[in-house]
């Protein structure tokens, strides 16, 4: 075996080893990131759930029906008659 061949062999062996380690590292990294992603996803779900709850609350509390009832009942408001409307140009 000539000297240059030996060098090549060593280089290739090292390359194989490092690529193998790279694969293992990448796989591990991907799993770690995925676990993290799952956590974030769960947090998003929680936030979305809360948001949904608040949206439903908003929809029921702020419905036109309630607004009109409170405006007409408790606050004694009413829409102006056409005779009382003046349009400012």
């Amino acid at each position, binding site marked *: 075996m000539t000297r240059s061949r030996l060098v090549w062999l060593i280089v290739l062996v090292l390359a194989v080893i490092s690529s193998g380690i790279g694969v293992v590292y990448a796989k591990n990294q*991907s*799993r770690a990131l*995925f*676990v993290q*992603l*799952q956590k974030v*996803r769960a947090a998003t*779900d929680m936030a*979305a*759930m809360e948001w*949904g*709850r608040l*949206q*439903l609350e*908003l*929809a*029921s509390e702020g*419905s*036109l*029906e309630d607004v009109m009832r409170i405006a007409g009942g408790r606050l004694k408001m009413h*829409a102006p*008659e*056409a*005779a009382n*409307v*003046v*349009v400012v140009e």
Partner: protein
Amino acid sequence: MAGRRDRRAKKVEREQAKLPSFAARRYGVLGIFALAASVLVWRAVDQQILEKDFLQSEGADRYLDRVEMVAHRGLITDRRGAVLALSTPVDSVAANPRVLRADSAALAPLAEALQMPLADLRQKLARYSQRRFVYLKRRMPPAEAAYVMEVARAYELGGVHLEREYRRYYPTGEVFSHVLGFTDYQDLGQEGLERAYNTALAGTPGSKLVLRDGRRRAVDDVENIQSPRDGKNLALSLDGRLQYIAYRELKAAVKRNRAISGAAVMLDARTGEVLAMVNQPGFNPNGSRSSKGGRLRNRALTDVFEPGSTMKPFAVAAALELGVVGPGSLVDTAPGYFKVRGGRVKDHHNLGQIDLQTLLGKSSNVGAAKLAMAMDSEDYWRVLDGFGFGQSTATAFPAEAGGQLISWRNWAEIDQATLSFGYGVSVTALQLARAYAVLANDGLSVPVSLLKVAQPPEAQRVISERTAVDVRHMLESVVLDGGTAPQAAVPGYRVAGKTGTVKKLGANGYSDDRYVAVFAGMAPLSDPRLVMVVMVDEPRGKHYYGGSVAGPVFAKVMGEALRLMNIKPDALTSPQARLAEAGGLQ
């Protein structure tokens, strides 16, 4: 010395003679060892190399598992962003009755956490004691379900677990029920827009690999196979406020007139967007959803009716457009009836010589029929076709009806005559609204849409601007005193519209006591923005005329809509005039 050596040699000889050679046995044992070793090596080779894939997958099956990752169903909002449909997670509590026995101690706190009587829980577990799975309680709010699990853990009750499901909520309840439809237990669209846009709303679920322990519990996430893609949100063209008002008024009118059903549609005349679409009877999408009496049907889109007199403006528009008459022409309706081949057309009263405005204001059948007979069949048909009669509204809504306009080739003389006052043609409420929108939009037709439109779609000219303006001004007389629908007037605004009181077609021809009351109109007349059609089926109260049954619904909803949309009143007396009236202007 020699003797001693001899003795020793003899002794060795003796011993050698006594010990047999074990070579065969030795080789035999060695052979057995070699065989055993080679069997082991072969087995190793077999398992490690030849059967490797099979065995590895078998192993993985026992500790790895593919689990679906749910894609969230998209929201549905109204045009202003208010939520109309929303999926929220709920948890169902399930148990393995073989582990959680009916006679377990500490069932009482579990029953309390589940908010169910202890006896019921015990009975349920006893009944399914041979099964491995039973739902204890379905669709609990996640916080309450988490509390159940806490209790189960605290009392060391095994065999209880949660299953995540999604439930769709409709905060507006019945108001939007027909338009939205609803989803099934898997959160897939079953009716309405939920069904029409199910694919976009549902998204695509993903999957992942998880590690399971000896009890099949997922202990760790291993790998992402496919990320879930959440469903898209849907923004409707409808306005929640207008929808609510329309629903309230239609419901009241249907009840007041003891009608079978009703439908109302409001359109933005310029963009073709549907701003409100309501029906009666309704249903609660969060509740039982019984389909009794067709209450699930979005009648405004799925049910057709003969438009009756609401069709007359299109006869007038066609006659003007085709040059058969001019805006100032008179039509002779004397003596109040009119014979055509195949039948007779008549009015309630003999109206004599009338102009087009009176024709529409007093709703003369004879006048409309005379205009129709004066037109060439094909030309008349082309104009009606342009207004969209017999053409689907193409909103992609499930079971959307297209109405019917018979081809002019198959018209008998009587068909051409009755068509002018709306018999022998069928429409949905939305189709009729679309046709009125052409009059409102200066003769241009825009496609209608249930979804919010980013920019106005390309319009198609149906009739000239002149004709559209003329016809809609003629329609103002309908809502003025002396017209057929003064109840449809909106204070502060100029309104144009047309009533229809249509005899229903039964098994024995047209009925004399079953009607459909219709009103179609637009406002503000000086620059129409909103078009609305109200249809009430079989009013059985004191009134049955379109003007008195459907007119008030139009007036109320249109009035509120104009105010909420900040549309300038066009029928106010000017401030100067008012001041002068009050004597404030010197």
